[in-house]
C-alpha cells in the first residue's frame, strides 16, 4: 500500500488498526539470481536498486540479526559530502543528492533535516586548512563556505566562545546541505520498497560458509540451509574480514569500535550538526530532543560492541568544555558499532578476485551517508559485472596499484 496523507487520515479514523505489515517474512529459497549478505542500509539499498533499476526480482538479503540492527541502527545519522578529493566528493555528493529525494523515492518519511554541518576551527592553522578545503569543494562544485567567529557564535549560541576557552573558536567550515535523518527509517524504507519489488529479506539467517568452485562463487551455507547463487555481495561492515575469509580472501580491513551516546531529551536548542575535529567530538539534537554525541574510534582492533571508557571520557570531556550548558545533562544510552577501517579510510567497493563475489566495505566511520549511492553503484556493478564509474577508484585493486585515496586528513576528523 502507498503511504500518503489520505492513508494516514484513514488510519487515524479507524484507530490505526488496519495498517498492513510493511514487508513479508519469507523463508529461504534454494536458489537466487543474487544474494546480498547484510541487512543493513547498504545491503537493503543494493537489493532495492538491483530490483528497481536492473529488473532483477529473484534476490535475497540475508541478515544475521534483525533488519538495520547493526551499524545502521547504531550510527549518528549524519549525511554530508564535504570531502577533499574529487573521487570522494563526486561519490558522496551523489549520495547526498539521493538522500535529498529518498523520502519520495521510497514513499517512506526518512525525516531528512538539512540543518547544515559546521566544523569548528580551533586554531588559525586549522582555519587555513579549511579555507583550502572549502575552495577545493567549491571548485568541484559542492556547496561549502567559511564562517567567521561571530557567525559561528550566532548560529551555535550554546558554544563556549570565551577567549579563554580550552578549545577556542577561530571560525568554521559549513556545508548547509549537511543533514541528519532517521536511520531506522532509511533501513525500513529500503526494506519495504525492496520487498514490494519481490526481494526476499531473510532475518536471523547467519552465513556460515561461502562455496567457491573454479574461482567463482556458487552458493552460501547458512543457519537456515544452503542457497545457490552465482552473484553474492558482502555488505557486512565490521565483519567483512570474517565473511571474506570464508571465500578465501584476506582484506585490508581492521575492525574497530566506534561509539555514540545520547542524553536525556530537552527542548530544541541546537540547530546544526557541529563537529570539532581537533578534539573529535560531534553533536546534533534529534527530533526527540536528545543530544546525539559521537567521537572517534577506539584505536585498537575490536569486535566488542561496547566502546572503551577512555573513548567515552574523551568525547564527554570535549562536550563539556565546548558546551558548558550540557554539563549537568544525564546520559541515557551509550553503545558502539564495529566499523571497517581501510588503510586510506576510503571505502572498498566493487568486484573481488573471486568471480561473482562483490564487496562493499571500508566505510569506516562514515557508512551511513553513503547508503543510497553505495547501494545504487554496487547494484549496477553486480548487474553489469564491471565497476560503476563512481566507484571505479574505490576498488580493492588500488592497494596493489598504489593509487590510494587518502581521505584520512580531509574527511573532517583526525584519525
Amino acid at each position, binding site marked *: 500500500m502507498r503511504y500518503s496523507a489520505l492513508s494516514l487520515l484513514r488510519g487515524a479514523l479507524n484507530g490505526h488498526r488496519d495498517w498492513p505489515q510493511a514487508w513479508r517474512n519469507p523463508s529461504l529459497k534454494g536458489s537466487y539470481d543474487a544474494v546480498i549478505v547484510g541487512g543493513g542500509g547498504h545491503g537493503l539499498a543494493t537489493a532495492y536498486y538491483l530490483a528497481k533499476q536492473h529488473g532483477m526480482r529473484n534476490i535475497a538479503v540475508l541478515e544475521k540479526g534483525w533488519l538495520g540492527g547493526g551499524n545502521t541502527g547504531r550510527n549518528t545519522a549524519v549525511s554530508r559530502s564535504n570531502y577533499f578529493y574529487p573521487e570522494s566528493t563526486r561519490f558522496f555528493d551523489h549520495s547526498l543528492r539521493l538522500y535529498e529525494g529518498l523520502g519520495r523515492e521510497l514513499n517512506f518519511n526518512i525525516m531528512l533535516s538539512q540543518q547544515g554541518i559546521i566544523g569548528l576551527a580551533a586554531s588559525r592553522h586549522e582555519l587555513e586548512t579549511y579555507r583550502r578545503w572549502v575552495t577545493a569543494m567549491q571548485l568541484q562544485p559542492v556547496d561549502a563556505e567559511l564562517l567567521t567567529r561571530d557567525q559561528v557564535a550566532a548560529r551555535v549560541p550554546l558554544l563556549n566562545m570565551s577567549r579563554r576557552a580550552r578549545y577556542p573558536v577561530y571560525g568554521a567550515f559549513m556545508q548547509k546541505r549537511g543533514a541528519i535523518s532517521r536511520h531506522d527509517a532509511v533501513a525500513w524504507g529500503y526494506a519495504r520498497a525492496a520487498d514490494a519489488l519481490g526481494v526476499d529479506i531473510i532475518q536471523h539467517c547467519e552465513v556460515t560458509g561461502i562455496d567457491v568452485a573454479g574461482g567463482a562463487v556458487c552458493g552460501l551455507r547458512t543457519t537456515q540451509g544452503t542457497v545457490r547463487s552465482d552473484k553474492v555481495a558482502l555488505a557486512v561492515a565490521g565483519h567483512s*574480514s570474517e565473511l571474506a575469509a570464508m571465500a578465501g580472501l*584476506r*582484506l*585490508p580491513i581492521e575492525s574497530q569500535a566506534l561509539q555514540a551516546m545520547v542524553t536525556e531529551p530537552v527542548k530544541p536548542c541546537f540547530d546544526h550538526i557541529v563537529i570539532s575535529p581537533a578534539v573529535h567530538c560531534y553533536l546534533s539534537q534529534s527530533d526527540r530532543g536528545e543530544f546525539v554525541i559521537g567521537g572517534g574510534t577506539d584505536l585498537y582492533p*575490536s569486535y*566488542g560492541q561496547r566502546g*572503551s571508557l*577512555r573513548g567515552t571520557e574523551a568525547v564527554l570531556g570535549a562536550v563539556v568544555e565546548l558546551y558548558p550548558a550540557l554539563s549537568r545533562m544525564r546520559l541515557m544510552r551509550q553503545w558502539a558499532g564495529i566499523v571497517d577501517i581501510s588503510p586510506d579510510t576510503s571505502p572498498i567497493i566493487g568486484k573481488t578476485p573471486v568471480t561473482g563475489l562483490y564487496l562493499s566495505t571500508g566505510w569506516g566511520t562514515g557508512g551511513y551517508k553513503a547508503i543510497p549511492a553505495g547501494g545504487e553503484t554496487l547494484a549496477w556493478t553486480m548487474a553489469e559485472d564491471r565497476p560503476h564509474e563512481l566507484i571505479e577508484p574505490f576498488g580493492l585493486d588500488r*592497494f*596493489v596499484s598504489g593509487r590510494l585515496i587518502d581521505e584520512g586528513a580531509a574527511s573532517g576528523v583526525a584519525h
Partner: protein
Amino acid sequence: MMRIECPCCGLRSEDEFRCGGESHVARPAEPAAVDDETWSAYLYLRENPKGVHYERWHHRYGCGQWFNVARDLVSHEIVAVYPMGAGKPQLDRGGRA
C-alpha cells in the same frame, strides 16, 4: 577498560598504551625482488579475526617498550603477553596460553 601487563612496568591502564596493529607480519626479505601483489599483501592485508588476535603494543606513556599481546577481540581478554621477536604462543582450545 582494559588493563595490560607491561613486561617492564606491570599491570597498567590501557590509557598508557598504544596498539601497533597485527604482529608477525613478515617483511619480504628482498623487497625489490617481490611483485606488487606480495608487497601489497605485506603492507595492507590483515587477519582481523573475530577471536584471538596477535598484536603489538607500545607502552607509550610508560617505559616506551614494544611487546606482543594475544587478545580476544570480542571480550578484550588478554590471553598472553610475550616479547617482540618471539613466536606466537601456543593456545589451547579454549584460547588460553
